[in-house]
């Protein structure tokens, strides 16, 4: 973790620098399929979607073990396991299936309710959890695509939530305009917070990982200070909490007051589309990705990578800032505390990784994690399994995703390409493939 830029280090081909994108393709094995059908099958079996699904599945299995191991009934029944093993198995099944069914009912569809309108409420409340995760995940993902690791989501969310929340309760403005100004102010705060990181990286070479971690705490204590000062503190409250947001500033409901889906969700959909357009259709996005893939090549190609770092961090700050804005104007509108970030800054990293840093993927990953979070509250209320269980699941999913060979080993999947006899041969083959042609090696060989 030097202060130098990756590009300035004269160490060649020792692996990728900050390439979370390369999570799935850092293996040295080259794809050398045996037959056309075999190639197709191997493509499917080693595709990132299959791996993602398997990683989620494996994590749920591990989570099931965790639930069973900590369940009181299971522990009681296992005391006489050799007397009546069926009791233990029964208890394990009850605890695990109960917990996952509760997550489903709380996060996707409540099948115990009598009509669709109330059953689907679960999914809509999941969207309420998913919205800030998607927004922040997009911000992190844009950074990943440009080779920047932004772990400062927490700080950006706190900064933007503080500013948007302040505008939301401190001013008297007409409905609509008030909301727009609050949103813009919050996004601006996020942009400033991101700009600090990008500027320091571009001008001094300060590593963004360190700067963002440190800025998280700076934002936390700054917000804490303001929440204890007349600026943000609700004078009528004993605790350091801000006043309620004015009704003119908060996001309006889309489906009536019954469902917690509001205008913020529209903003997040727009942000997702914008990110897709930016990354895959715009000139700026092309430059950003070029910097992310290979900064040295990008510089040789005439891209001013320092400027790109600043752009990326500002953009990342705006997107993550949207999550902060949503927290105060869409989710917790009754006044915010220092914990308003709700861990989204870090969960967003896992969302971005699960979504493979692609806007659509991030959207889907955000919805999945939103479902897990909304469901976890039902699970805690009904099954007595603590909500932090979800944090374990989320982390394990990403761990599995990070190492595709591990998932393949667990599920006995074929590695991409026929298994060569030795590692050095595989490397030689991959080198040959890389130098010969960027297209499918198998097609050429046939």
């Amino acid at each position, binding site marked *: 973790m030097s*202060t130098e830029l990756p590009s*300035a280090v004269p160490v060649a081909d*020792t692996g990728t620098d900050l390439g979370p994108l390369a999570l799935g393709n850092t293996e040295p094995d080259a794809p050398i399929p045996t037959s056309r059908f075999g190639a197709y099958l191997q493509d499917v079996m080693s595709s990132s979607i299959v791996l993602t699904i398997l990683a989620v599945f494996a994590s749920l299995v591990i989570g099931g073990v965790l639930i069973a191991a*900590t369940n009181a009934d299971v522990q009681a029944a296992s005391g006489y396991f050799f007397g009546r093993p069926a009791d233990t198995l029964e208890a394990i099944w009850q605890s695990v299936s109960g917990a996952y069914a509760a997550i489903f009912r709380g996060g996707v569809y409540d099948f115990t309710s009598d009509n669709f309108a109330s059953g689907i409420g679960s999914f809509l409340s999941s969207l309420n959890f998913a919205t800030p995760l998607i927004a922040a995940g997009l911000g992190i993902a844009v950074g990943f695509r440009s080779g920047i690791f932004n772990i400062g989501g927490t700080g950006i969310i706190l900064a933007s939530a503080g500013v948007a929340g302040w505008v939301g309760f401190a001013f008297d403005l007409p409905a609509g305009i008030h909301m727009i100004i609050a949103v813009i102010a919050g996004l601006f705060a996020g942009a400033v917070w991101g700009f600090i990181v990008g500027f320091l990286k571009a001008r001094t070479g300060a590593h963004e990982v*360190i700067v963002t971690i440190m800025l998280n705490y*700076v934002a936390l204590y700054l917000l804490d200070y303001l929440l204890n000062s007349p600026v943000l503190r609700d004078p009528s409250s004993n605790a350091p909490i801000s006043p309620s947001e004015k009704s003119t500033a908060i996001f309006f409901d889309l489906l009536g007051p019954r469902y917690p889906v509001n205008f913020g969700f529209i903003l997040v959909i727009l942000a997702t589309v914008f990110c897709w357009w930016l990354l895959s259709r715009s000139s700026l996005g092309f430059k950003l990705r070029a910097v992310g893939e290979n900064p040295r090549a990008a510089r040789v190609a005439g891209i001013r*990578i320092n400027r790109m770092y600043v752009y990326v961090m500002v953009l990342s700050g705006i997107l993550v800032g949207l999550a902060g804005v949503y927290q105060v104007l869409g989710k917790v509108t009754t006044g915010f505390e220092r914990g308003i970030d709700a861990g989204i800054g870090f969960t967003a*990293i896992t969302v971005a990784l699960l979504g493979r840093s692609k806007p659509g993927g991030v959207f889907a990953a955000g919805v999945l994690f939103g479902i897990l979070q909304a469901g976890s509250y039902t699970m805690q209320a009904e099954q007595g399994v603590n909500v932090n269980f979800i944090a374990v699941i989320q982390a394990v999913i990403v761990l599995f995703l*990070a190492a595709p060979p591990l998932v393949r080993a667990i599920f006995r999947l074929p590695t991409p390409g026929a298994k060569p006899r030795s590692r050095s041969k595989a490397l030689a083959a991959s080198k040959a493939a890389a130098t010969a042609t960027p297209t499918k090696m198998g097609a050429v060989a046939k």
Partner: protein
Amino acid sequence: MTTVADKPTTSTSEAAAPRLSRKAPIAMGIFALLAILLLIVFNRAGLSHIEFTPNQKGAVQIPLLNVAGGPTEIVIAILLALMAIGSGVLNWFQLRTRLWYIAIFAILIVTGFLVWASAGLSGQLNVTDLLTGAVAISTALIFGALGGVITEKVGVVNVAIEGQLLMGAFVSAVTATVTHSVVAGIIAAAVAGVLVSFVLGVFAIKYAVNQVIIGVVLNLLVAGLTTFLYQDVLLNSISALNSPPSLPRLPIPGISLIPVLGPLLFNQNIIVYLMYVAVVAVTIGLYRTRWGLRLRAVGEHPQAADTVGINVGRTRFWNVALAGVIVGVGGASFTLGGVGAFGANMTNGAGYIALAAVIFGGWDPIRATLAALLFGFTENLQSVLGTLQSPVPNDFLLMLPYVVTILAVAGFVGRVRGPAASGRPYVKS
């Protein structure tokens, strides 16, 4: 971005540097200006009561010191200004500002600040308690920083210090409660740290996954796991699982009676003594042994190390594991060395401060230890000043380590340069 040219030239005094870095005088000048602003412009008059020996059985009693706040602050501010100018003069004559010079400067700043903050308050500022508390807070930070130095020196970025500390705290509390043995608790903490290290090592070294990602995810995993187990298991049976015995203080006969230093350094629990051993061992080990040489070679230039027959992957893996032992023991100081029982997320970002100390300390064990002490001191200072009802906003003192670290990595304070290959997976080719 090629402005990183000032790489190794000025790092040793022997090197024929064309021009000495002006950072030290500039930084001292800035701090002196701040001191003048605080101590002279915002001068706070009134007596400041500074106490050295609290009511305990010290062999020597130092009387209560009553300092007149106003004049003392002005004198200190002038001294600071003179020292800053002195540093500039030294620089002019191509002489480096030595570490002891900076240390005296820093102590003066702290003294001036303490007098300023306590002037006119009725309470007494107890220096011994202030420093002892700082050591207590710093212990975990120092263990974390030492582990961080080892992992980074061997070429693996360790963001997972936080997770290792938290895991160590959790496992040590549970083990010590179940076995009624603090020693077992400390050993279990070390094992817990190693387990986290193993995951980090396998993913970072074998699967060549981005190390920062694995670190962050491990922190999330450990935080989620320990909180889940705490809420679902420990809270249901607090007496059986989460009421560990506290570590006794072990005064070293004789020298523990020295005023201030005795209670500060030699009347501590076993983890603090282990920390002294660890600091010395890591420092000597890194720079004076074959182990340290190999470790640094792997972190600086893995290809070269590989060429001379050092197994890069194995060296990295086992040193990351070793760092897990050290950080895990540090985690035990949260529970066994402090409050005893485990609490959800009780490390509260200490691992990230330790990471900051590693960087602020320039990847050197001694400097990182000093940085950790400094950070522990500021943290304790804010709680002491808080109880004295001083006008200093706590939040800004708490923010200080982080701001200082940002300034450090941005190159405004000191010069930081990490191991060259840190963070890069080594794939043998």
